[in-house]
């Protein structure tokens, strides 16, 4: 048996789908953020795998992943700051409750 490229992509796809599911269904904003991380992670894996698959000698995919991780970190930090702030105001972090800024 050989580990073809597909074997790497399928877990990543499943992880992405889980992320989507979580993002759509969860009410808690932190849980949504977690789902988001899952999706990002899945994408990261794909970058790496395709880097290896298409340009084995080069490092584009890896660096993309690297930057994506950095961005994810930044994004998470900011999002969590907002969530905590929202929590301070409304004592809740359910996405449905944060409607003050609508309209």
């Amino acid at each position, binding site marked *: 048996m050989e580990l073809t490229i597909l074997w790497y992509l399928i877990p990543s796809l499943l992880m992405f789908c889980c992320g*989507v599911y979580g*993002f*759509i269904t969860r009410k808690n904003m932190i849980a949504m953020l977690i789902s988001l991380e899952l999706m990002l992670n899945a994408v990261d894996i794909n970058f790496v795998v395709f880097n290896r698959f298409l340009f084995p000698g080069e490092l584009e995919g890896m660096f993309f992943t690297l930057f994506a991780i950095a961005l994810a970190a930044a994004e998470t930090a900011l999002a969590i700051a907002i969530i905590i702030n929202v929590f301070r105001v409304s004592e809740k972090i359910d996405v*449905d409750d944060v*409607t003050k800024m609508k*309209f």
Partner: protein
Amino acid sequence: MEPVIPIIILALPLTMFLVLGLLGHKMAHRTAGILGTLSMGVTMVLAYITTLTYFFSGSSEFINEEGVRLQSVIFNWDWLAFTDSLVIRLGFLLDPISALLLVVITTISFMVHLYSNGYMRDHHGVWETGFQRFYAFLSLFSFSMLGLVVATNIFQMYIFWELVGASSYLLIGFYYTKPSAVSASKKAFIVTRFADLGFLIGILVLSFYTGTFDFTNFTSTGVEGMANVYQVDLTTAEGIRNWIASSPAPVFMGGSVLTWALVLIFMGGMGKSAMMPLHIWLPDAMEGPTPVSALIHAATMVVAGVFLVARLFPLYLMEEVALNIITVVGALTAFYAAMVACVQVDIKRVLAFSTISQIAFMMVSLGVARPEFHHGLGYMAAMFHLFTHAMFKALLFLCAGALIHAIGSNDYTDMHGLRKHMPVTHVTFLIGCLAIAGIIPFAGFFSKDEILTAVFGQSIFWYIWMSAVAGLTAFYMFRLYYLIFWWKEHKTPEGHHAPHDQLWTMTLPLVILAVVSCVAGFVPFGNLVTWNGHPMFESVNFFTNLGALDWSVAAISLAVAILAIILATVMYKKENPLPAKMRSALPRLWDWCYHRFYWDELYMFITHKIIFGCISRPIAWFDRHVIDGSMDGMAWVTQRISFAIRGLQSGNIQLYVWIYLVGVILLGAITAVCLL
């Protein structure tokens, strides 16, 4: 003839209307009255001059070598040009009937102007409010009526026709704070307006097919070089008939276009002349001041219908059908109105129905006029009766006005036995009654006799019918006379002055009109007014009319009248139970007559229930709820859709993601399908 005098005849009342209407409220009442009366007097004198010139000057403008009277257009100004040939002109047409009407209108109008000086103030000499307005409207009416009779074309006639309608509206509603007067004026206007619709359509039809509005063209088309001749021989008639038959669509809804046009025009005449079934406005119009009733609703405006038919008589001659319709309508109306007049209580209503009946006489007379018979005797008789009727009916109305003014009520039940208190009124009223009853030698006898002769020549049935009506006329007039002046002694209510004859301004017109009613019958009409301008007699003297009578007819009608008077005398001279017995013997008939055969109720039903209830209200409802509702509905639907779309834009991030995702997947799927 120079147009100066005719212009003044028209312009003076118009000016007076403007002056009194605009400045009247700044004038003293007396000044306004004198001004109005004087100007009308001047108009009357000028009208007399014009008429006398027309009939007796012998100028070639007015009469040709064979002694045939001509139509003469004194002036004719373009007022409104629809097309090159269809032009409304304002002009002055002088021919026998317009000259006759000039005299009638100005005379009666002057009498009424004079009379109103007394009538329009109470016993203490306090003027009615709006006295100046009253004179302004009278002047407006006189102007309009004069304009109507001298019209050179049918559209001018229609214009003034509408104007007399409006001034009649204003005068009936003179006491505008009285609801009954307001509704009466409204009724009069709307009913005649409805009739005018027919008139208008008739004009449209006639003018479309003949290409002209001018009377002179209607009556003399086809006779080359005789444009001004008031004369249609049968070849001309044939010409017009062929002409209409050869124009496009000569047949409309089963009748010839000409028949339609003439019948529709006659409908206008029916409205103004209160022929059944459009008569209902006239009795109500008595809400106006009595002088107005005398002027407008007895002598002048209501005969406009007769005048209209007479004016277009040569055209009517071409359509036997139209003339027969006129005869039937007239005969039915005459009988109906006479029946109703027999039981009314309000003296003005009795006179009103009598007016309807008498106008119907004229209509019948026109309807039976044929050139073959006595040179179109009916036509002459109608005009003759128009003239005499105007005089004695105005007299009767003015007498009624004097009575009402003295008593303060319209009902004979409040009068009775006034002969000693008001001798002048009594005598003049009696003369009026004798005249209308047709007793020799009063005016009505001659004209009515001519009519009956004409009817006799055409149809025995209608002759008997009309003689019966004449008998009824004598009966109800004397019933009225006795109930007012005899029956029982007058009881003056406590605290009132005994009734007495009125001021000279009111009695003078009575006397003058009474004198005219006595002698008018001897005017040799046959030589003045005939349908084709040909004189009827070789030579004339004072007794021409007497000599020309058909004595067999005259004797019968005289006998009928005298019998009717005797009957009235028996029943009403002294207080007695006969009338009550009569009433209880025929209760149903009495009820129907008293309620005027329920025509008003029928009209109320049609207007309120059908027009308002079944047409207007549903339409208004439809408009508000269906048409407007559908517009609002469109707005509502738009709003709903907007709300629905707004729901998608909920701010729910998860829904957005889902939609985005589904979109992406679909795109992906499509791409995949396309690529694979």
